[in-house]
């Protein structure tokens, strides 16, 4: 049998040892939020854009486009219910090929596409209540999120970044959407919930939860969680913790958006006027 010399003779699938080593992170304060850096309006080609980074490695870049004519007339009414309703929000979520280390599905493989599509659907459900779609009849708004590096709590960061990008694009919204993730550490004696878990914590976790809050309206726009989280009281506690986390993140996002607006304004107003 002819040997294939061009390729290394190794197992078909392999993982770097780091995956199994685990990190020797000490106990941490479950309520601690990882520092968040956000900047809106950094891409010039997109109408609106935002970049969100959680210290510890999660990096998400989002771009948003304002109203465009819906691809086919009437295409939106099928799912819209109630006839000539508002516009459609189209969301996309992509993981960069270099976003994560360790065991990940083959890039561009069916499993990865499936995971991306599920995340995109979750993103849409989290953002839809925040956008005034009724103001954009027969039009289509688009948001695209690119996960550059996955260091845990990626979907939550994507929700925050996407809502900043939409606001930056000048889309009319009821509120910003702030995302926050939690996980339940199996090692911890009381099984406490951790806010904004890192990648390692997320992988070990017995249960995970991602929330999105519209802070001014005090409405929850996304709840997505699974795992062995215990009885409703425990999940309720997680929810409270997470919502509190969202409230604490909100000022950061707000500031970054205001900064972007001022920058834009300054660029358009000639100096001295």
């Amino acid at each position, binding site marked *: 049998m002819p040997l294939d010399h061009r390729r290394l003779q190794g197992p078909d699938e392999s993982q770097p040892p780091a995956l199994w080593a685990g990190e020797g992170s000490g106990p941490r304060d479950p309520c601690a939020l990882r520092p968040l850096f956000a900047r809106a309006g950094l891409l010039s080609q997109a109408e609106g854009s935002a970049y969100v980074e959680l210290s510890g490695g999660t990096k998400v870049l989002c771009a948003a486009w304002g109203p465009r004519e819906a691809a086919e007339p009437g295409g939106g009414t099928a799912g819209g*219910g109630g006839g000539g309703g508002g516009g459609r929000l189209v969301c996309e979520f992509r993981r960069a090929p270099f976003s994560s280390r360790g065991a990940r599905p083959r890039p561009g493989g069916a499993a990865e596409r499936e995971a991306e599509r599920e995340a995109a659907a979750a993103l849409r459900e989290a953002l839809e209540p925040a956008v005034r779609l009724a103001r954009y009849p027969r039009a289509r708004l688009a948001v695209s999120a690119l996960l550059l590096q996955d260091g845990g709590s990626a979907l939550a960061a994507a929700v925050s970044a996407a809502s900043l990008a939409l606001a930056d694009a000048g889309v009319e919204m009821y509120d910003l959407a702030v995302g926050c993730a939690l996980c339940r550490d199996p090692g911890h004696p009381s099984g406490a919930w951790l806010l904004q878990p890192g990648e390692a914590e997320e992988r070990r976790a017995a249960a995970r939860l991602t929330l999105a809050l519209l802070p001014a309206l005090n*409405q929850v726009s996304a709840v997505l*969680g*699974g795992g*062995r989280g*215990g*009885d*409703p009281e425990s999940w309720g506690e997680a929810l409270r913790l997470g919502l509190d986390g969202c409230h604490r993140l909100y000022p950061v996002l707000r500031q970054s958006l205001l900064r972007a607006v001022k920058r834009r304004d300054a660029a358009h107003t000639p100096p001295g006027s």
Partner: protein
Amino acid sequence: MAAVCLSEAEKLYIVHGVQEDLRVDGRGCEDYRCAEVETDVVSNTSGSARVKLGHTDILVGVKAEMGTPKLEKPDEGYLEFFVDCSANATPEFEGRGGEELGTEIANTLYRVFSSEGSVDLKSLCINPREHCWVLYVDVLLLECGGNLFDAISIAVKAALFNTRIPKVRVLEDEEGSKEIELSDDPYDCIRLNVDDVPCIVTLSKIGYRHVVDATLQEEACSLASLLIAVTSKGALTCMKKIGKGSLDPESIFEMMETGKRVGKALHIALQKILDEEESLGTTRQKVGFLG
């Protein structure tokens, strides 16, 4: 989704009715429609069940096939979910029309069963790292009358209860090569413990209240629902908001409580009916689709 279109006045009538705890079909907010459960309806599967909940009609077949364990969990078997929204349910699902909903439901099922311990996966292992049983849980949607998630989860649990996996022995010769021998006796089989298999309770927010087991018409009136997977012991294994709208934090807490309460009742009723069916033994006259 097979959505129905309602006039504003009809929606208003439904919303007001929910407010008064009297739904259009006379139910209260926490009442399920009458459900019919039958197991062992497809004979060439390892386990199967058919559940009718109002007009929603679900057929689930479980097939056990031999596979290789996943790398992360070398000593466990695993479950694979597939949901076929067939054109039987509504012409909208023809061709690839049902695919989107099907993957959404399948993804939710993965999430619901992601909790360790819902099914004893270790018992599905034949020999670590090499062979295990893969349970293909295939859901077929035959008719769609609202509340798909709950009906499907009931049917999945019933089908898993009905599943019988043949016992196998691993024979090892001197050289270390292994051979798998299937038991000759068809009655010699493993059964799954389904005590911890969760059921989904979908709570649809209509007006200021929430209802369980919404019909298609009620689903059209609801902007947001919370889907909760509850085990018979009252533990939650999955939580998910679905729909275009958003929810009040307070109402989420209420919904979780209701979900737990209703979920427990659901498990008791289901277990009772499964036991009752089993007690009838093999002499039970099967009803199936001919009934």
